[in-house]
Structure formats: structure tokens, C-alpha cells
């Protein structure tokens, strides 16, 4: 299913104010059309993104989470994205044990001038999320099913 057809999915973006948020603005100024699923939360720096925001989103119904910051070496705060890179990479690798598809989370580096790149990132990521479909919903039905599954597995 392509990103622009069918039901919108819930994609949360955390973008650093200086680079990627600016890049998304640049994409807007350039009128680069993008799928509409993404909602952007502005943060000062990718280093501000506690991986727990991502997990919190994923556990509570986000179908995808995207973090984007300045390219390595270009952090407005010199080092924020280096910390972010380690933390987010660890996070991405942690997801499988939870049973969450790693493709539901990605982090990228997009500068304020890269409007075209931002469009590509949004398109690619959104398309990927649509390919995965909606994230499993943790509701009573799922819990009941999980318990039966667990019981039979024993």
C-alpha cells in the first residue's frame, strides 16, 4: 500500500530545531509534497531526545517514530547528535526483544538546507510504515490472546 493512499498512520517525528526542523521548513518553502502521516515535535537538539520518548510513543500506539538531527560534526551544540547517535542506535537494536519491528523507528541526519532530502526521508519512512501496516494494538483482546498463547506454550 502506498503512503498516500488509504488510511493515515500515526507517525511521530522528533526534530532538532536547528537542522532537521529547518530542513522540514525548507521542504515546505520549496513546496515538496509529502505524505501527511507525520506529526513533528520540535526539540532543541537530537541530544534532547530521550529514547524513552520513542518507546513511550511506540507502546502507546505510534506506528512509527522518526528522529532527525544535524549531521554529525554539524550539531548546533557541538556534541548533542553524537550522544543521540549512540542512544538511538542502542534503542533501535533493543526493539526486537520487545517484539517491536525495528523498522518502526529510524533516526536520520538532515540539515536545514536539505529540503529535498527531508522530503525523501519522509516519503521513504512513511512508505515503510505503510508497508508494515498499523502497529499491533495492546488492548484487552490482545492481552487475552497473549495469555492463551503463553499458557499453551507452557
Amino acid at each position, binding site marked *: 500500500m502506498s503512503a498516500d493512499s488509504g488510511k493515515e498512520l500515526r507517525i511521530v517525528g522528533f526534530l532538532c530545531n536547528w537542522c532537521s526542523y529547518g530542513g522540514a521548513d525548507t521542504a515546505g518553502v520549496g513546496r515538496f509534497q509529502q505524505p501527511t502521516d507525520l506529526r513533528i515535535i520540535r526539540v532543541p537538539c537530537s541530544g534532547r531526545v530521550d*529514547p*524513552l520518548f520513542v*518507546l*513511550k510513543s511506540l*507502546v*502507546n500506539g505510534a506506528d512509527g517514530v522518526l528522529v532527525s538531527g544535524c549531521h*554529525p*560534526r554539524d550539531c548546533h551544540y557541538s*556534541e548533542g547528535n*553524537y*550522544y543521540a*547517535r*549512540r*542512544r538511538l*542506535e*542502542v*534503542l533501535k*537494536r*533493543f526493539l*526486537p*526483544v*520487545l*517484539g*517491536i*519491528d525495528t523498522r518502526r523507528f*529510524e533516526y*536520520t*541526519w*538532515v540539515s536545514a538546507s536539505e529540503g529535498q*532530502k527531508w522530503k*525523501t*526521508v519522509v516519503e*521513504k519512512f512513511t512508505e515503510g510504515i505503510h508497508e508494515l501496516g498499523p502497529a*499491533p494494538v*495492546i488492548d484487552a483482546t*490482545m*492481552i487475552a*490472546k*497473549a*495469555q492463551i*498463547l*503463553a499458557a499453551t506454550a507452557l
Partner: protein
Amino acid sequence: MQYLNELKEKIKENLPELDMVVGWEQGFDSLRASPLFMRTEDDVDKMIWGPLCVHNLATYLPSLKGKKVGVVVKGCDSRSVIQLLQEKLIKRDDIMVFGLPCTGVVSLRKIQDNLGSLDYIESTEVDGDSLNITVDGTNHAFKLEDVAANKCSRCQYHNALLSDVFIGDPITEEAEDEYTDVDEFEDMSLEDRMAFWVSNMSRCVSCYACRNACPMCVCRDHCVAQSRDPHWITQEDTVQNKWFFQMIHSMHLAGRCTECGECERACPVGLPLLLLKRKMNKEIKELFAYKAGTLIDAKTPLLSFKVEEDNINERGW
């Protein structure tokens, strides 16, 4: 009860300079040990040592900050001490470490699985590599190996890595840890993995015993799980909240967890909580060739960075 007398002697020798020494004594029955805070020589005589001494006593150190404290540690426990020192959560000058070589400790859960109930233990005897438990007049013999904690079979640190006083002969053998348990778990389908956690977490009673037992959980009264500012977890009794708490715990322990397994041991409903932390450690090891609690002078990977990372490659977005 190897080395016990020597250990007692050493503790008594050093007790005058210390506010207390933390060790183990027999708990409410012969199978169970509990922490012992020794302030007098009489206290020291109550001490026990052996495969029943399960608790990681390092857990008590941060809350005893400011006091001069001795602590008795097994190999695995010593890693927690090192990690606490590395993070400056305790002061080296304030603690005295009594290190021991350890061949493994029991898993009460495994024994319980065999006996059905642990409520009526009459006597417990450790004899070489076997464990004899009498319940209701019946003797049950176990091989220690069969009822040892999971962490013991893959133990790479039998001897305390750090000690001011080391008692006994160091054990030379060490096992490999390839995180096969993590790999096996991840062989299951994504759906099954998620179902596993959802069903497990639905049993969680939110008692926070896992957190309280964790030597590296140092926020204590200020745990974000129970605060409104920041308000990470809502008051609702949901699976999401419980599961998310375990994620918080894992993330907070990323690059810090020494895999002592206290979280899992302390859990009253037997949730496999160590698995999450081991997954985290596996990735930390692969990414940064780092193991928590092995070097005092090291820097925790997530509190540092390299401009060019060795193992993190851009995925070409």
C-alpha cells in the same frame, strides 16, 4: 562453608575501623539467607557463606553513603561495586570490599518448581556439589548445578574483581557468554515476542521489588515511575504502563547493568526481567565492546561518544 572462618576473622580484624559490614545470615528458614548488617563481633558470628547467599549486597551501598562500610561480595556482586564506583555513586575510601571466589548460588525459584512449595522447609544442607533439603520429613537431594541460578552457568567472574581483602583460592575456570538465551528468544516471531511480554506484564503487580533490589537503581525516592514531574507513567493500571516501566528500567541501565539478576530474583510473580537487560548489554557489547562493572576508570558508553563511531554506520537515508 569453606573460607567462612577466615572471612569472619578478617571482618573482625577490620570492624573497628568500619561503621558496619554487610554479609549474609540465615533467614527465616534454613534454605533462605538474608542480609546481615554486622556492627559487633557477635553479629559477625551469625554470618554464613555458601550457595544460599544469593543477595547482591552491593545494593545497600548507595543508601549507606557517608558511612564506612565493609561489604562481602561474590564475583558478580563485585561488578556492581565497580560500576557504582565508576559512576561516583559511592566513594572508594568509604568502602572495604571482602571478596570471595564463588562457584554459584541457588535459584529458589528452580527449587520451588521442584518442590511445589517452599513453605515447610525443615532443614537444608550443602554438601560439596549437592544440596539436601528436608520438607515434611522427606529428603530431597539436588545437584547444585541443577538448581543454580541461570547467571552462574555462564559466569565469567567467579572471583571478586575488586577486593581489599580476598579470601580463598581464586577459581580459574570461566564460562563464555554468547547471549544464546537472547538469541533463542529472538528466534520467536515478533508477534510471539510481543505476546510474551504482554502476557507477562499483565501479571505484574507494580510492587517495584525489581527496582528496589537493583544495585544500580539509585533514584530510589525519585524514581520517575512514581513522580508527576516528570510524569512518565500515568496512574492507570495498564499493561502499557507496566511494560513501559520495564523499558525505563532497561534504558536507565543501558551500559550500567552488571547482570546480577536481582530484579528477576526479587520479582514476586517471577517475571523474566533480566532478559531485557541482557538484550541491552548484548547490544552495548557489540556496539562499544563494553561490559559494565569491569573497570572503575571506564566511561559508560551512553555518556560518551566518538566522532567516528566504530560500529555505527549511517544507513544511507
